[in-house]
């Protein structure tokens, strides 16, 4: 019996909601990029079930929710998922601090793709709102990983396809 897929998407929906939650103006640049983190997590842990196509769909939802150019986050997140799926075997054996650094680097690349697209459409902007979410997400990664590991292990215990 395979574990159901809906918890994966439920967590992604929660992450998306967390990104839209109202915050005071001063704290907005420090809002972690929740969706990006969760996408990295699932691509890292379940690359067979959550890959480039899924990340693309998530990206479309983010685009609609943020009101950004349709396809912008879809492109950056599918690139991110591609990189993570390619590298998942190496990333997984890293100790936590190294993994956190790698996640930071990956998210930086993702943010750079977004900046690139913004620049091409004439909206380039180097505010704290651009890099703040990346830094905040990297700082929160160990905590998020610990929480998500619990969910994942519970799902895997019910799933016969995980030996």
């Amino acid at each position, binding site marked *: 019996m395979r574990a159901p897929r809906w918890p994966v998407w439920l967590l992604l*929906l929660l992450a*998306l*909601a967390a*990104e*839209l*939650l*109202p*915050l005071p*103006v001063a704290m*907005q*640049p420090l*809002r972690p990029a929740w969706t990006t983190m969760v996408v990295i997590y699932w691509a890292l*842990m*379940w*690359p*067979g*079930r959550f*890959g*480039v*196509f899924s*990340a*693309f769909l998530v*990206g*479309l*939802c983010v685009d*609609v*929710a*943020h*009101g*950004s*150019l*349709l*396809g*912008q986050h*879809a*492109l950056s997140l*599918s*690139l991110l*998922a*591609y990189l993570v*799926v*390619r590298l*998942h*075997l190496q990333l*997984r054996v890293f100790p936590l601090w190294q993994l956190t650094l790698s996640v930071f680097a990956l998210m930086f690349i993702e943010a750079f793709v977004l900046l690139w*697209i*913004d620049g091409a*459409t004439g*909206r380039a*902007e180097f*505010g704290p*709102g*651009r890099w*703040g*979410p990346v830094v905040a997400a990297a700082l929160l990664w160990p905590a998020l990983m610990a929480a998500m590991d619990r969910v994942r292990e519970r799902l*895997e215990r019910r799933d016969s*396809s*995980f*030996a």
Partner: protein
Amino acid sequence: MSPFPSSADSEGRAYRNASPGLRFFLTASLALALMFLDHRGIYLAQVRAYLGAAMYPLQIAIDSPSAGLGWVRENLALRATLQAENAALRSQALSNRAELQRMAALQAENARFRALLDSKTRVPNRVVVAEILAVDMDPLRHRVILNKGGREGASEGQALIDALGVVGQITRDQGDSAEAILITDPDHAVPIEVVRNGLRTIAVGTGDLERLSLPFLTRNADIKAGDLLVTSGLGGTFPPGYPVGTVTAVDGSSGDAFLEIAARPAANLDRLHEVLLVFLQEGSAATPGLEPAPVLASPPVETATPSPAIETPTVVNPTPNADTPPEAMVEPAPVTVPEPQEAQEAQEVQEVQEVQEVQEVQE
């Protein structure tokens, strides 16, 4: 077959169909095509409207805690608090009404003067209240979601104001909701004029909720800190005369041909809950009362009466000292109305319109 050595949980099944590289190639091409279409604004407007409408339930859900908090605060408020608030509002309403009386007289007077000067009369605009959902969008852009959409008559390009000034305009109508852009968004510009001397220019958003920039004024422009900026009405999106902001700093030290001018938005952009959708009145932009051109001092009745009739039906009766303004308004109107032949008048109106259009172009 897969390019990867299989691990415990990515056994076989995952890479049966396509390698991640091929998948990425597919999604990247699709994403690029979508971006191109969306940026050019072709084909996708309707799709985006539907997708936005599909996202509305999530936005409502996110908004619900703060909406619920507001409901709780309203319903569990102490009687004494409510009474105090009620009293405060009532006294405020009274003073507002007193202001309005003066306003009605001034408006009529203004209409007469405008008639004398042979220029258009301004018609008051109709407004509808919309709520802003407590949802944060892209941190780099200043967009908000309103709970009124095309079904309530909102349309793309419609201006938004709050009690203090201009807020922004609607960018996308999604049926039950609408997406709007604030005047401080880097993509937004609003045509303005300086109240003190009528100097016209454009205020551009900066991405900072507290700051607008006026980049198009040359060094010899007459502008200084403290000047009030209002919408000029050029471009037709924003109705004229609504406050946009005040100039905070004028910097000519850069040696550039243009001044660096910063202004502070009049509206409370970081604490918005409700905004007003402004409906431009039919004809206010094109053909308001133009009759008086050939005559000396005859404000036509039509232009003088509509404003008080619409605005102050409740004001006239309850307050005893309201007697003078309405009479002052109505009295002079019929005094010197000449009775020209209707056909000729119509022709004159047409001519006047043409002349005015030419004048506007020259301006």
